[in-house]
């Protein structure tokens, strides 16, 4: 099939950037969205033009490297789907597709469609871990009884791949869904409870300092999240934050 693409091009962090129109032919319906961009880049290279820079790694929906705001939605129109798992059968022959980078001041553009998401790493470093003494006398995790429901909820929260679609989608560029997934993942397990109060305060402080917005509870993040991270986690973060104040 044939497509009209409108793609954001930006030479570097200081370039102003602009939307550029491209035509592409010979797109197969079973190509992934990224394979379609590979094809476009091959055409560009053959013509001696600069290929379009975009992020990707695993291409199987587990690493969180791919991004892209496609036709006005993070990771495109499909639910619970990363861009690498989005397929061209989702689009019609002759369709116009706009492709933009994640937009948030906390995610500055590096080049074209690639943005710097290291702000999420810095939030993670502020408390997204547990401190365990690995002296050789650690208790086997399986020896600690955990209610099935808590284990399931913690595991669901842990499926966040840190892609940043929640930030890209949020009208406030808020990272609350990401941060709440990390907070809730640990808060629901006995190993995580020990540092729960400090964790939530430290992670929220870095989240604010990195320039993410606050949460208006629109719920757009949950809808666009490729891993279906639930808004319940944000309620848990809020509760943990309040509990930490009285501690």
């Amino acid at each position: 099939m044939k497509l009209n693409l409108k793609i954001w091009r930006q030479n570097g962090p200081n370039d102003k950037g602009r939307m550029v129109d491209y035509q592409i032919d010979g797109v197969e319906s079973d190509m992934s969205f990224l394979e379609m961009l590979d094809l476009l880049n091959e055409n560009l290279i053959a013509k001696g033009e600069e290929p379009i820079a975009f992020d990707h790694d695993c291409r199987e929906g587990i690493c969180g490297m791919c991004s892209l705001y496609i036709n006005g939605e993070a990771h495109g129109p499909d639910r619970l789907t990363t861009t690498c798992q989005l397929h061209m059968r989702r689009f019609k022959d002759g369709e116009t597709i706009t492709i933009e980078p994640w937009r948030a001041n906390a995610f500055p553009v590096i080049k074209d469609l690639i943005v710097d998401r290291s702000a999420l790493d810095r939030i993670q470093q502020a408390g997204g871990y547990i401190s365990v003494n690995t002296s050789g006398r650690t208790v086997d995790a399986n020896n600690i009884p955990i209610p099935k429901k808590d284990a399931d909820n913690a595991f669901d929260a842990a499926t966040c791949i840190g892609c940043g679609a929640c930030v890209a989608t949020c009208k406030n560029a808020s990272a609350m869904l990401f941060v709440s997934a990390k907070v809730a993942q640990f808060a629901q397990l006995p190993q995580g409870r020990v540092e729960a109060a400090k964790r939530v305060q430290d992670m929220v402080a870095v989240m604010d300092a990195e320039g993410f917005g606050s949460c208006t509870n629109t719920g757009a993040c949950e809808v666009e999240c490729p891993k279906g991270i639930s808004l319940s986690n944000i309620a848990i973060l809020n509760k943990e934050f309040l509990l930490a104040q009285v501690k």
Partner: protein
Amino acid sequence: MTILKSSVAKKVAMALSGLFLVMFILIHLAINLTLIYPGKEAFDAAVEFMATNPFIQLMQPVLFLGFIFHIAMGIYLEWTNQGKRSVKYVNSNPGAASSWASRNMIWTGLFVLLFLIVHLINYFVPFKTQEIHDHYALVTGLFKNPFYTLFYVLAFIGLGIHLSHGFQSAFQSLGTPREKCNKALVITGNIIALLVAFGFSAIAIYFYFN
């Protein structure tokens, strides 16, 4: 203000002030409904009670501060949040993932604020500065003006939309367990939103025609 330093704490304060205003608006609706049933005597008595009861007198400045806080914090949050994405999307489809009400809290809020100012000029200032005994006549008289009645109805529909998202959102901000409570909160919020929008509007429209 160090207690309000964090964005999460600001939203908790926003939620508490919002829920406080919800309580106020429901009491206000109950009093206004006496305009229609039982009628004039009951309404004038209710107004007299509100004007003299010491507890209500004590609550008046609290309510005033509650409004000021909610409005100021709402505008502040919206303003700072707007600044978090300097380069906008060329193509954005927010309707695919969230409700209009949730994205436009500031606009429904500011519309209610505009109404509030007009409302204070029309009712509250005369209540406080003049010797008025026929409250009923003052209130119902204004509804004879079709423009005022239209503005009044639109303002309460706006507030209804504000609350259709706000009520449920407030509990989320307070950390209410979502799996257990969300359904009930969404339903309660929508009932309150409908009560406020149609309750106040119905009274205005009733007096426009009667």
